């Protein structure tokens, strides 16, 4: 994946996340397209593009709720940095591994965000994380499986290829 394509994809993800994602909610949970892009960005391009991409995407999303400007940016930067690091130790061509990473990454992102957002209401934090974080993570992981299938079909080795350690 080229950097330009990654930037375009990130931009599209930000727009879709702000506009279309609420329309495809299931049980109140929505897919985290930003995490999806950041995680696959880290898989295809490595740590720095994923971290910077996550940070910038998060920053744009933060403008929707300026009170927490920087929070999404930080959470997605963490996701980009850690997911890039963890790929080095996993079999990347396995769909279940990819889905698992997406699930954990989504919950990590939500965990950081909700921790600050509900810092004074930890009981709500746990219930929100358990419900929307987990459901959103599963939703995102399911989309990840689709991306994996598409990558396999189109021969995108950076995402689907076996480059296990």
């Amino acid at each position, binding site marked *: 994946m080229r950097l330009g394509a990654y930037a375009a994809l990130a931009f599209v993800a930000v727009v879709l996340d702000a506009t279309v994602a609420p329309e495809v909610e299931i049980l109140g949970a929505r897919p985290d397209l930003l995490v999806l892009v950041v995680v696959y960005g880290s898989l295809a391009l490595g740590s720095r593009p994923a971290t910077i991409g996550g*940070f910038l995407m998060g920053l744009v999303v933060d403008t929707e709720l300026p009170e927490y400007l920087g929070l999404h940016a930080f959470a997605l930067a963490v996701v980009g940095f850690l997911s890039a690091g963890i790929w080095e130790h996993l079999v990347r061509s396995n769909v279940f591994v990819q889905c698992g990473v997406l699930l954990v990454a989504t919950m990590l992102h939500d965990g950081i965000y909700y921790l600050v957002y509900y810092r004074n209401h930890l009981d709500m934090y746990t219930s929100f994380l358990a419900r929307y974080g987990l459901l959103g993570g599963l939703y995102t992981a399911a989309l990840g499986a689709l991306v994996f299938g598409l990558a396999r079909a189109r021969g995108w080795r950076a995402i689907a290829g076996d480059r296990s350690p």
Partner: protein
Amino acid sequence: MAFHLTRLLRGNRDLSTFLTCAAVSFVLLALPPAAKETAGRALSGVVLGPFKRLTTAAIETAQVREENAALRRIAAELMNERNALIEHRQENERLRELLRVLVTFPEEESFELLPARVIGMPGGRVIERMEIDRGAEHGARAGMAVVTPEGLVGKVVTVHPTRALVEPLANASSAVSVVTERGRVRGVLKPRYHAASELTTWQIDYVPARSDVEPGDRVITSGLGGVVPAGLSVGTVTSVEDGPLTMEVDVRLNVDFSKVEHVFVITGTRSGPRPLTDMEEKLLREIEKLSEEEHE
């Protein structure tokens, strides 16, 4: 300590990138609310605003289309229901009229009436046959007269178990013995089909010249031949032309065959008025009440 940290960061660009991003994030989080608000709104309006407006418009358009399709479907269903209701109302009026006749048919000579619905009209421009939904199982027999509240329709010619064919007066071979009500002049009513105008008219044949017949005279069945009972209304004399031996008497029938939907088969007669059943008396009262309400 600072030296080691600097070396670590220089050696690990990924980590330094992440830490930079994290630091900027914390700085942003620590900004005064007003500054965050201003920056956030400016950035949001520039970056996401146009796309959000576009997407919202697209989603709303899709919703309006769905809603429009649903409303069209509902409108079509309502239109069908409305048509069905109109049809039912008209049928209800016809049935009410038939019921009135069924209950109050000639008191002095009561008929056993078998209500039937016209289910087919085989034939071309001239109605040669009518198919009704009552047959031998219901008591219909060949030769029985068929009437409507307006008057005579014809007679049953073919009977099947659950349906029958009626030969209407419009049939070319139809011939019914009739009499004028006022002058008691007898004759045989027959149809005349005019190919040029594609119209059927009716004439009374065998009327002797200078008989007492005038336009406007009511024509009823004579009962001769024993097939059709006497006294059934048939039509009205429209024109009379006297000749050397016979008269040409044109008649306009009471029944419009093309509009007949319900008929009665006269399955028998009885002397004296037929006693009404409780249900018929109740129906009659209801009909009279409805008629009074309509007049008011």
